[in-house]
């Protein structure tokens, strides 16, 4: 399936639910959708269009909002779709796709860890890289690094 074909099928199926004009960069189709349509469109992309390869997911702090991107691909690696959802910066929350593509489980945990995005419906939302008691989210543009507190065994006991 070519990128143009995927674009036509998506536009025919979800007229009005795709925000703006989908752009094509090399073999990747970029679509922007609203959070409430995310699960429905993602299910269509996976089951009807056959994009079963869960490539990667990441968030970006765009200063006035936060955007979350999921990259999914065809099993033959010919075409990729980037699903983009914009969310509020003060209280970022988007739906989780970790139940559709299992690989996004860790990628969404990473976005939660480094950017503080809450994923609704995620099976296991915890920090992945940083310790549980870390303050702040380092990939935010306004994050200021503070020397971390030294690890004490009694903190571990308090948490559990």
């Amino acid at each position, binding site marked *: 399936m070519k990128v143009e074909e995927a674009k036509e099928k998506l536009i025919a199926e979800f007229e009005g639910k795709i925000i703006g004009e989908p752009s094509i*960069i090399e073999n990747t189709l970029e679509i922007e959708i609203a959070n409430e349509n995310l699960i429905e469109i993602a299910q269509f992309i996976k089951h009807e269009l056959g994009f079963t390869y869960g490539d990667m997911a990441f968030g*970006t702090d765009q200063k006035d909002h936060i955007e979350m991107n999921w990259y999914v691909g065809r099993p033959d690696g010919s075409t990729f779709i980037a699903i983009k959802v914009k969310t509020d910066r003060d209280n970022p929350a988007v739906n989780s796709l970790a139940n559709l593509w299992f690989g996004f489980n860790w990628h969404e945990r990473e976005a939660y860890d*480094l950017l503080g995005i809450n994923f609704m419906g995620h099976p296991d939302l915890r920090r992945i890289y*940083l310790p549980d008691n870390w303050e702040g989210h380092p990939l935010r543009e306004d994050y200021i690094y503070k020397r971390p507190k030294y690890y004490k065994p009694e903190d571990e006991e308090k948490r559990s």
Partner: protein
Amino acid sequence: MSEKTEMNLFMGPQHPSMHGLWSLRLTIDGETVVNSDCQIGYLHRSYEKLLANRSYEQGIPITDRLCYVESHSYSTAYTYAIEGIYGIEAPEKANWIRIMTLEIQRIASHCLWLAAMSVDLGQLTMLIYPMTARELLINLLETITGARMTYNYARIGGVYRDLPHKITEKIENSLEEFTRLHQEFLDLLEESQIFRMRTEGIGVLSKEDALSFGVSGPMLRASGVPFDIRKADPYMGYDQLKFEIPTREEGDSFARYRVRLEEMEISMGLILQALDKYNELKPSDPYRLEKIPRRPPKGRIYRRIEAARGEAGFFIESDGTPSPYRVRIRSPTFNNLAPLPQLIKGGKLADIPAVMGTVDLCVGDLDK
């Protein structure tokens, strides 16, 4: 007997078969693994922030340190993505040099994996054999780039320098020697009953799960998906070379081992083909673009290459300043490790090194 017999066990970060700083929290019932949870992040250096705080060129030596086993793949992937942002293309000669060095790096990385995995499975002789073979390839890379571990050889729009004189004989001799050693690996491992018993049918990853988890590289191909970026989305002129993609249907540890060994042979063929293409060019042809503007245009791009462990990709968002606004590293190990709890669930504790060994971990790349 209603007594609870489960217990928790920490494997790593000091465990010798963990291959780096990460740990596995296991819940075991006797010898059977009931549940597990990967604890990663001990080596987290916030690479995405580091790269976004530096100019494009300053980022190249840093990406070399992403994975200490195959540093050249990552710096090439980064420069390749930067070229996409600038909208420039490296000269033909640079591409053949890149393909050669990338494939040498792939074999060297697979050799280190083979040594480490065999020791985990009790094949102590196999520690020395692949390391000796790896030395041949590292020496080649040293001749070409000037360094043995972190090469800093990739540049935006080409490579740091041209290949040295008389490299053709050197590469051919090294590969001839390597072919002999490669046959010895096969003889030593395939005929070993213990090795086969410990890997066959262990840690089976199904095709659907492999795709859903975003597993890539030899691990995906061992599960029966013929997905190789060198074929599916050719870059740097791989479409002009002839090669096969080794694929296995079983999805177990033995299949993953076998795919990697077959890949070494494929890579040797690719090096020789790229060398022929290189020798067709004149010595005066450029190996690097001369002038690169300091500020790239605004835009975003995601470009991927096939590293030894799988898909190594860089997403770059540029805001028109000399440094990128956002860099996202898609590291293959991060996706490849995610299905591990599923692979070892219900198996025996002693099978964990057999499964983990064939996942081919590199913690520097996993933790970013």
